[in-house]
């Protein structure tokens, strides 16, 4: 096979740097690599995955991250604080929460009722009645903390571990570490990603090869039903004529190639057209929900308000998960930032996502996929226990709640504690780097060993930080 002529002259790293991309996973599938099958001559180069990965047996094969953009209020959702209600209107003193500054603001109690759910007795607010039914699948992390009190910095830290330097996103690292399980989909897909607060950087590949960039479907402000992948469809000519046109192009290209002999650039180009053409038919099929049963659509809340949009996003996430995508992010619009009217805001936002999330957990479970799918829920930070503008809450990176389900974490567990006001972590703080280390660990990747050489040094997702939270591993 002709491509052998240049394949073996490249080092592994060269391959990673130059290997063809985008949906080149088509030919770079882990299947092809595992079975030792070489790709067709006209295909882009192979093998996206570093040799020897995963580092140890994985508990999860994939991640679905449900991102609540704007910052959900932990003290109104997963971290009940009776003291807030008792002290409502009083000034929160710094010494009560272990910091030097005083007069932090007026304490504001939660307007919502909490109850314990499941065997584990997990406390969940009344705003999540459907999610609460799955309490025993969930591990609530109450002690997550991050840096960055503005959305942009916090989003970048959540998604890339860094804010002042451009670093690969978590999904890109997972793609780099594990590759795609799919023959025709990239390893990392982000559904309705934010365009602001770091935008594409939040699913970017930075210095990793471009194949590891998340493929974006739509963007946060557009309903997913109207989302398009750019240039997936030719608006002027039908597919029959386009095939004829492509045949002409490829015929001219092959002639150029035969003059050039074994030119990886031209071979790559020829391959990229075939992949593109194939994608034009496969992607719309996957994106359509026509093949889902009425009961599934109803369970998620498709075609019902206010759930329709998030339901479609979650259902799409499950379809991608089924087809072997490694890292799938689903984002809400920028709607969780309740500087005023936190009560009304949280009632509205939870109503959009509660049923779809519960349905996703149930659906994955029914299909036997929850065991090896890690579902992660959370925002870029929490919200202050103190009032802002009378009835709102401000940004709060000091501590907030996230939860995980499935994929090798203990269900029915609540991990970490905060002080009486939900202001700061007390026991078992989990920094964003720890969260990242733990996600990689569940996927069978050692966060200290998953490195990439760039500009003269080895980089990793967690920089020089990060500890796996072993206590939550099932």
């Amino acid at each position, binding site marked *: 096979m002709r491509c052998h002529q240049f394949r073996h002259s490249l080092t592994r790293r060269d391959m990673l740097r130059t290997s063809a991309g985008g949906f080149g996973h088509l030919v770079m599938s882990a299947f092809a690599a595992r079975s030792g099958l070489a790709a067709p001559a006209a295909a882009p180069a192979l093998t996206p995955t570093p040799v020897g990965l995963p580092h140890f047996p994985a508990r999860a094969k994939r991640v679905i991250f449900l991102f609540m953009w704007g910052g959900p209020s932990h003290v109104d959702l997963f971290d009940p604080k009776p003291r807030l209600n008792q002290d409502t209107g009083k000034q929160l003193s710094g010494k009560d929460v272990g910091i030097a500054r005083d007069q932090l603001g007026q304490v504001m109690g939660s307007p919502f009722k909490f109850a314990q759910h499941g065997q584990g007795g997990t406390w969940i607010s009344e705003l999540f009645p459907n999610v609460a039914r799955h309490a025993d699948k969930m591990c609530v992390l109450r002690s997550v903390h991050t840096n960055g009190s503005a959305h942009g910095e916090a989003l970048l830290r959540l998604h890339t571990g860094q*804010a002042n330097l451009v670093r690969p996103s978590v999904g890109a690292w997972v793609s780099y570490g594990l590759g795609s399980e799919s023959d025709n989909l990239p390893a990392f897909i982000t559904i309705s990603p934010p365009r602001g607060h770091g935008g594409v950087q939040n699913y970017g590949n930075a210095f990793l090869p471009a194949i590891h960039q998340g493929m974006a479907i739509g963007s946060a402000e557009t309903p997913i039903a109207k989302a398009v992948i750019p*240039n*997936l469809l030719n608006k002027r000519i039908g597919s029959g004529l386009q095939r004829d046109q492509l045949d002409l*192009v490829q015929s001219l290209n092959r002639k150029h190639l035969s003059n050039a002999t074994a030119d990886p650039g031209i071979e790559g180009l020829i391959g990229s057209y075939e992949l593109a053409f194939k994608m034009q038919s496969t992607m719309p099929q996957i994106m359509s929900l026509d093949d889902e049963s009425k009961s599934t659509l109803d369970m998620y809340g498709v075609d019902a308000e206010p759930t329709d949009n998030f339901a479609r996003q979650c259902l799409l996430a499950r379809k991608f998960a089924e087809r072997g995508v490694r890292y799938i992010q689903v984002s809400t619009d920028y709607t969780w930032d309740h500087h005023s009217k936190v009560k009304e805001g949280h009632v509205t936002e939870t109503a959009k996502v509660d049923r779809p999330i519960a349905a996703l957990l149930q659906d994955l479970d029914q299909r036997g996929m929850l065991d090896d799918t890690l579902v992660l829920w959370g925002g870029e930070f929490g919200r202050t226990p103190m009032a802002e503008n009378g009835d709102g809450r401000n940004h709060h990176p000091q501590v907030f709640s996230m939860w995980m389900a499935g994929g090798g974490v203990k269900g029915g567990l609540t991990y970490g504690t905060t002080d009486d006001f939900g202001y700061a972590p007390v026991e078992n703080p989990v920094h964003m780097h720890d969260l990242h280390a733990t996600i990689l660990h569940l996927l069978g990747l050692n966060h200290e060993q998953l490195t990439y050489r760039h500009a003269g040094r080895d980089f990793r997702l967690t920089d020089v930080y990060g500890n796996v939270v072993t206590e939550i591993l099932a």
Partner: protein
Amino acid sequence: MTMRFATLVVSAMIFISKGDAADAPPSDPVAGRSHWAFQPFADLTETPVADWSQSRIDDFIAARLKQEGVKSVPDAGRKELIRRVYFQLVGLPPTAEQTQAFVENQHPDALEQVVDQLLGSPRFGERWGRHWLDLARYADSNGLDENFLFREAWRYRNWVIDAVNADVPFDRFVLEQIAGDALPYDSIEQRDRQRIAAGFMVIGPKVLLGNDANNQRMEVADEQIDTIGRSLLGLTLGCAKCHDHKFEPVPTADYYALAGILTSTQVMERRYMLGEQRVMERLVGLGQDGDALDSEYERYWRELPQARKKAERAKSALEFLKKDDAEGLKNLVEKNADALSDGAKDATQPSEQRIASQNQLIAELDAAIAQAPPIPPRAMIPSDVDKPADESIRKAGQFNQLGEKVPRGFLQVISTNNEIKIPDGKSGRLELGQWLTDVEHGAGRLTARVLANRIWHHMIGVGIVRTVDNFGRTGELPSHPELLDHLAKTLIDSGWSIKALVREIALSRSFALSSEYDAAAHEIDPDNRLMWRAHRRRLDPEALRDAMLMAAGQLDLSPMGSSVSYLGDQATAVGKNEVRRRTDFPNRSVYLPVIRNDLPELFEVFNFANPHATTGARPNITAATQGLFLLNDDMVMNAAEATAKQLLASPETSESRIDHMFRQILGLNPDDAERTELLDFVAKTESRLASEGDDNASLRAWSTACHALFSTSRFQFID
């Protein structure tokens, strides 16, 4: 496959394992001087003149080929060569007429004539200026957390293009960018040019919100050190921020010596933006009355909230007047004397008169509010802080953990003279700008090597040192160290003329080789490190788009000012802000908006430089998204249709039209088989479309054929 060139591809890390500096730690700057990149230039007289050569460059290439027993391929054909020269020098293909003229010009100086003409063309700066803009991490927005628009950045972009066209000596080019605000000037125009040039220091991405001011200052310095280090010195200095460098001869003290210069420089200031005061890029008015206009503009926004309140009060007063509510009016005026117009103050006047006077005041106030002054012309500019000072080492790189103070200065490994003194009350930026190209006592030799290698990289496709941004121990070794020294010396001797070096390379035989495959040479040197053939290269997105627009007759070659003026202060369309960067300008692609995190799709898909950080070599990746773009994007299809319309405008046979189309798009004639294939395709497509009821089947068929040619590898590659 042979491993003969292992030493070429293995990085210089090998030195470390051997321990090139005896017992000294890797960060020892004195021992580090033995690293090849810091060494004096080699004696270049040893390399013999080769018969094959057209230039001294070729002697070095020939010597290595001979040494390794590899024979180079023949020269490229004249059509290939002219296309290559045009693309590499000006980023555009030659027209069919220019190609024909060159092919027919038998004069021995034919190539020289073309090269000189292209070097003198304003198109040269648009191509080579963009190479520098990749390194300058040029963008029209801040990126990172808050993607605010850099409304004035385009002036810097155009300054770069103009400076490259004027062949401003590179040492001066650098100095103006590092310290243009501090240089003397003879005219306002010169002052403004230098101010704009110094935008280089300001244009980096910064975390803007919720950032501690001290941390922000250090982060800005880190970003500047990274950019200056990699773009000019080919050194990755960032590691020395937290600890003595583990690979490069850069102790932490050197890092903070540089950082002191940069933290003594400010590039941010508080200004009014989006209706509130924010920290944003530092700006200065341009032109004779620039400062006054800028102050007036800023004052308007600063005072707007007060002006609005004042107008509201005047309106309340009017209501009281109308209702004849003397008590209400008195209460209001007691607190706000300015709520009433002078003419309305006198209660003895008739009511109508007072109301009219008050109405007039309100009209004046409303008019002042409605008349925002136009945004004045401004430049992004750094300045020294009030009290420049040395910086403390930050332990483990933590901004709030102060260690020992270090005097401001430069890298010891490339400073043989400690005499450079930073005057009291100055940041040291001017001295830094001079040190970077100081051949005798500063980094000049290294900077020249790095630049010469970049020019080679852009002309040839691959650097002599392939890690173009890394000349340190973790970078690769040069494939032709003497050639690199020759190019660097030529650069310095020519007075740092980029054009002179481009010219020498363009006229070398090495540049003119065919890209043909040769089995014997490939067997020995599959990566073509010895330069036995030309590297076949894919067009970058700018050249790809420009070439399509040119074939379509749609390319507007006039330079462009701002391509982002219609955007609001928030550069990315988020939430209610629906205005997004446009790409539908007919001008060359170098003028398209570069919004960080929202690049034009074309740039995103075809490996444009990431504008968040200095980029010496763009990634070389082939992806399915590129296929989708070429198959389906409107811009491509519009260009194809316009090309087809031109072809159909003059009556000719289909055969001759196909020849015409090939020349117009690919710069060559089809062979017989290709002509037949195209004829069949057009005929079949036309009848297919006609049978589908298409009224315009002929145009559509020819458009589809032109589109096909745009999609070919011949169009997208430089052979």
